[in-house]
């Protein structure tokens, strides 16, 4: 107890220079109130439940960890590259590569719909970065050039509002975890309190996975959970469903 208190006190008194504008923007970007449609997706969890692969809280935890590892290995490279080089050319190039990389139709469509919403919201919200709106306008004017996949859009926004690439990649893991846990509560796998406890339990594992897959070039992007990918592809075969993916 004494020790804990001393540690917290030390941390609290640390003098860290804060870019206050950036911090407000960061929090808003990660806030679940931001209307990006993330909560319409279960990342394959709904299909996994209906095919009996996930049937209780313990299975759920395993599912989330696998999902986070796959997010790290497959998508963090795209977030990293666009955050560090948030230009129109880089973004369009990475969007095309990701479009060929997301070979699972369910996942690909989910990525496009979330990415399009996020770009639309960000262009209207972060008006202090006019290039967000101009990049969006240019891309909409020439259809087919960009599909608006989620990970490169997210990285682009982070880069343009001045977030560092470590934070943007960690934030991407956080959002994925947030959205899948939210889906789990609506699928009645856990209650809201249990979900919050679970989220905090998984955080250190998510941090390990983030460290393992951070700062990689897109050439390294890979699938690490082929079973999950197969299951997610079954989403379209479900007779009744709550989620889009």
């Amino acid at each position, binding site marked *: 107890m004494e020790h804990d208190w001393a540690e917290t006190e030390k941390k609290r008194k640390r003098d860290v220079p804060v870019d206050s504008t950036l911090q407000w923007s960061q929090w808003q970007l990660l806030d679940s109130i931001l209307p990006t449609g993330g909560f319409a997706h279960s990342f394959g969890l709904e299909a996994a439940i209906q095919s009996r692969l996930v049937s209780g809280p313990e299975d759920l935890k395993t599912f989330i960890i696998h999902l986070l590892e796959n997010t790290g290995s497959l998508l963090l490279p795209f977030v990293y590259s666009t955050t560090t080089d948030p230009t129109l050319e880089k973004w369009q190039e990475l969007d095309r590569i990701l479009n*060929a990389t997301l070979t*699972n139709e369910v996942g690909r469509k989910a990525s496009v719909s979330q990415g399009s919403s996020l770009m639309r919201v960000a262009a209207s919200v972060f008006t202090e970065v006019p290039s967000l709106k101009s990049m969006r306008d240019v891309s909409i004017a020439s259809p087919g050039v960009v599909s608006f996949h989620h990970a490169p859009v997210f990285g682009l926004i982070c880069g343009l509002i001045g977030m560092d690439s470590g934070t943007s990649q960690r934030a991407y893991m956080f959002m994925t975890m947030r959205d899948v846990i939210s889906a789990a509560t609506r699928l009645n796998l856990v209650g809201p309190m249990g979900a919050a406890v679970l989220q905090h339990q998984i955080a250190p594992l998510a941090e390990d996975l983030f460290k393992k897959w951070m700062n990689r070039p897109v050439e390294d992007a890979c699938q690490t959970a*082929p079973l999950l990918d197969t299951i997610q592809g079954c989403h379209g075969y*479900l007779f009744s469903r709550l989620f889009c993916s």
Partner: protein
Amino acid sequence: METGKVVVEKVRGKSTVTRSFSKYPLKLIFPRKVGPSETDAVWIYTLTYGGGIVSGDSISVEFTIGDGCTAVLTTQSSTKVYKSLGSKSSDQVLEARIGSGALFVVIPDPVTCFSTARYSQKQVFRVVSDSSLVIVDWFTSGRHASGEKWDFELYRSTNHIFVEGNQPVFLDTVVLEQDSPVSIAERMHDYQVIAMVIIYGPKLKHVQDQVQENVKRLMSQQLHIPSSAKTNSDPAFIASCSVFGPKGMGVVIRIASTTTESVYKFLHHQLAGMQPLLGVSPYS
């Protein structure tokens, strides 16, 4: 370094192997009589000395399938990847160019990595707008009959398809490594086989349509079992289809199964529509 090369071209109107070479540890054979003589298809078998890939082996093959030709690449048994010595890994690289109106069919047996094995394979296919292509890429948990399940150190498999101008159409890499917060066995539940089937191009439209319909029917039935009748175990066979590429030219089927036999059966059944093109139906 290159260990093999094959060129297939039209000679007097027939698909013919016009150039080929292979060297240790790879051997290529071209049996003459695989199908009826009126079928225009070249069959190519790859063999490795000692029946498998030894730690440190590096195999690199290049295929050129000329305009209008049909070629099938297959194996006679599963590719075994033996235990690795130290941190040495084994790798296989395949590069193929598929010409206009040509069809290349890659239908091997699965890769089986023994415990501690480290294996990496990369297949790159360069197609033009009217080439056709079938790729089956699959692997098992190991010698699961003798208790080795997902016991290898590393398995990496890359399949890339590019159209003219180096535009990517399909980029896929699966990496399973033991050095991860979650072990491979845990990630795989009770499944022993993971397979991917890619069917691309105009010659295979009928096969694509058939497979999509069959998989949808199979999985819908399986998923509609009322929850009261459901057992607690995972389904023994899961498959899902996705369309990809410009104008939806390609279909990819992903499969997870508890047995190798059921995947052989599935492949045989779903690819049977190719028999007129190849002379023999795949996996028969």
